[in-house]
């Protein structure tokens, strides 16, 4: 974020990637499934890959995913968006307000509009007035929280007799691939090693799917296509990498930044709607977002400012959340066991590559985690809630040299 921290030398050109991005993603998914089913087999905790866990995980991952996507749009255009949390809060209010009157689709639209208003404010402050991005984001978080509290006291209180809660909001109908789902259910019930795990995960993904989930997936794919495969996206990203060069080539940097940040707010707002429209929730609730905007930001960083990566980050954080919510701290412990397994694989890989220091560090971390697994009966729920924060810190500490954020991210740009 500080321009002086940017490396002054041009890094040597990287070797051409041998494996395409989608293949890396597929390998990652396959690896995650193998890891989960192995852990589930070794620790005898079938909930790790049960349909219910996966369904809950998907529901909880959605808000994180959408917030992360919002962060991606803003940061690719060079605007750091700490205000995601505030925009998300505004989205929750908008969703509840329109939702209880006109149904879930109206809720989505209103949430996007309210989030976009927050984005517009951020864009005016950071792009037009050149205010520091962090400062503006913090202000928007304060403002978003205050505004929704005020509005909910004013409008929801007479309806629900509770200033902190909205009337119940109708939810989306969910869809299941019924034949497939039943067949997978039978397979899962057989409790065969590996096969049943895969069946459980797949069944969780195809049963009770909300249109919101499909929309979110479409938005991820759409964001990738727009940002990386169109002229508009190239120009938008050029504003985040080198706005001066972009301007010299005739790109209207201010306009692109405005579009990106407003879109970012709209996505964060839809993320808020995903919370309100979650079947487990009655509607708007004060403090409902509970820092999920920040976790979205974390998922984006975890995903190295790439759509596929942030999908992985959101899935991981949503999964940890869902596991805890569904089956408590005991099964969460199995996840720690899984982390140990993962570390063992990493250590072997580092040994093969003769990177002794990294391997030694990995062994130490694995030993520590195993000690935790061995000595604790149950992870306290107070701590599991914040697992995403810890994972993000660790990823930042270990891989911060490999993460590459847009070069001019957070730098105030002034035309002239």
């Amino acid at each position, binding site marked *: 974020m500080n321009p002086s921290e940017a490396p002054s030398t041009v890094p040597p050109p990287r070797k051409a990637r041998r494996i395409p991005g989608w293949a890396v993603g597929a390998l990652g998914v396959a690896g995650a499934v193998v890891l989960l089913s192995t852990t589930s087999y070794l620790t005898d905790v079938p909930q790790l890959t049960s349909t219910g866990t996966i369904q809950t995980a998907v529901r909880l991952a959605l808000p994180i995913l959408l917030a992360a996507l919002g962060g991606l749009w803003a940061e690719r255009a060079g605007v750091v968006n700490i205000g995601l949390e505030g925009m998300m809060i505004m989205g929750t209010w908008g969703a509840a307000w329109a939702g209880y009157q006109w149904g879930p689709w109206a809720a989505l639209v209103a949430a996007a509009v309210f989030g976009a208003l927050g984005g517009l404010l951020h864009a005016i402050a950071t792009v037009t007035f050149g205010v520091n991005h962090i400062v503006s984001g*913090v*202000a928007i978080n304060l403002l978003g929280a205050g505004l929704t509290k005020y509005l909910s006291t004013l409008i929801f209180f007479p309806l629900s007799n509770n200033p902190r809660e909205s009337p119940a909001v109708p939810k989306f109908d969910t869809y299941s691939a019924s034949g497939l789902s039943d067949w997978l259910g039978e397979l899962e019930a057989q409790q065969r090693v590996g096969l049943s795990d895969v069946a459980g995960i797949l069944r969780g993904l195809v049963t009770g799917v909300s249109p919101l989930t499909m929309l979110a997936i479409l938005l991820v794919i759409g964001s990738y296509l727009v940002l990386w495969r169109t002229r508009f996206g190239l120009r938008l990203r050029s504003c985040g990498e080198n706005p001066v060069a972009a301007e010299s080539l005739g790109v209207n940097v201010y306009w692109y930044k405005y579009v990106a940040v407003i879109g970012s707010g709209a996505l964060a707002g839809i993320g808020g709607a995903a919370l309100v429209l979650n079947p487990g929730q009655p509607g708007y609730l004060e403090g409902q977002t509970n820092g999920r905007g920040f976790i979205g930001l974390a998922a984006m960083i975890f995903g190295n400012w790439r759509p596929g990566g942030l999908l992985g980050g959101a899935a991981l954080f949503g999964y940890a959340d869902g596991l805890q919510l569904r089956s408590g701290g005991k099964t969460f412990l199995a996840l720690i066991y899984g982390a140990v397994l993962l570390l063992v694989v990493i250590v072997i890989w580092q040994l093969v590559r003769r990177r002794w220091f990294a391997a030694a560090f990995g062994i130490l971390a694995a030993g520590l985690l195993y000690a935790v697994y061995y000595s604790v009966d149950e992870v306290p729920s*107070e701590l599991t809630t914040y697992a*995403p924060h*810890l994972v993000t810190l660790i990823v930042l500490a270990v891989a911060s040299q490999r993460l590459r954020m847009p070069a001019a991210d957070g730098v105030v740009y002034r035309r002239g």
Partner: protein
Amino acid sequence: MGILRGKLLPPVLAILFSALLCGIALVVSGANPLQAFGVMFAQVGEGTTAVDIINSTGTYYIAALAVAIGFQMNLFNIGVEGQYRVAAVVAAVVGGSIALPPGIHALVIILTAAVAGALWAAIPAILKVTRGVNEVISTIMMNGLALGLAAYLIGADVFGELRGNNIRTPEIPESGWVPGIPFGSSGTVFGLVFLAALLGIGYWVMMNRTRFGFELRASGESSTAAAAGGVNAKKMVLIAMLLSGGIAGLVSMPEILGRDHTYNLNFPAGIGFSGIAIALLGRNHPGGIAFGALLWAFLDKSGLALDNVGVPREIVTIMQGAIVLSVVVAYEVVRRFELAAQQRQVGRQLGTVDAA
């Protein structure tokens, strides 16, 4: 004139603009803004409001000082929020489990809080200087972890105890309390409000009269020039962050040692973020911060009266948010205006531009 325009005009404009904005919001929602503001001012004389404002000012002042130290060198300590929470729990637990003579006991608790806050801030600081991790992201994550850690530590089977519907740490014995100044029925001013004032003086001296303060400001003005002048950037980051965290650790001390004597579930949240807003409003100047803290405390405590006239008191939160955003915009606009004026003046003196 220059000082007046550059330093005082923006906050005044921002506050007026925010008041206007909130006034419009009130009119739209069917309330009388003049009545609302009138009620707020009248509230200061009622009950314990005046004393509450002073106490709250002290708390906000410490939080804003903690933020300001980082801001002086463009270091964004978003983590004050987590630092003061962790410090409060640790200090409350330590204070409740040791027995020392009066005075020393309180001193030990205060020092514990400062050390705990500094240690919590040390993690992002070390990550920044050794691994280049951006402090904004890491401190945000540390805030989340602080919430979890605090909730875990006061659990009934760890250090906490259940009292009715509330979970709290064991009460600090009377030897650890800091007496306040009683004003009868108007309440009691916390003794440690004076700690806030002392910290403010110390902050001013450090910034303006010590080499460290100079280097800190130099790093903020231009990190490259400071490096060329022999300032060790990493060391500055580390020290500034530790100092900031240490002061952040003291944020809740007036309340805990003056009134609550324990950390419980009703512990106030969000003071760290308010501190950021106040430091921005006061431009990192100890006097400006004092004014900002007073304004924040006034809005908080007098806003309670708004419920009596049928206005949701959350309007003051909107006002606070609007003030922060408009004050930073106002500073920027005035800065640009002055820059342009300076350029015109230079142009006139050089004779390249016709006098307007």
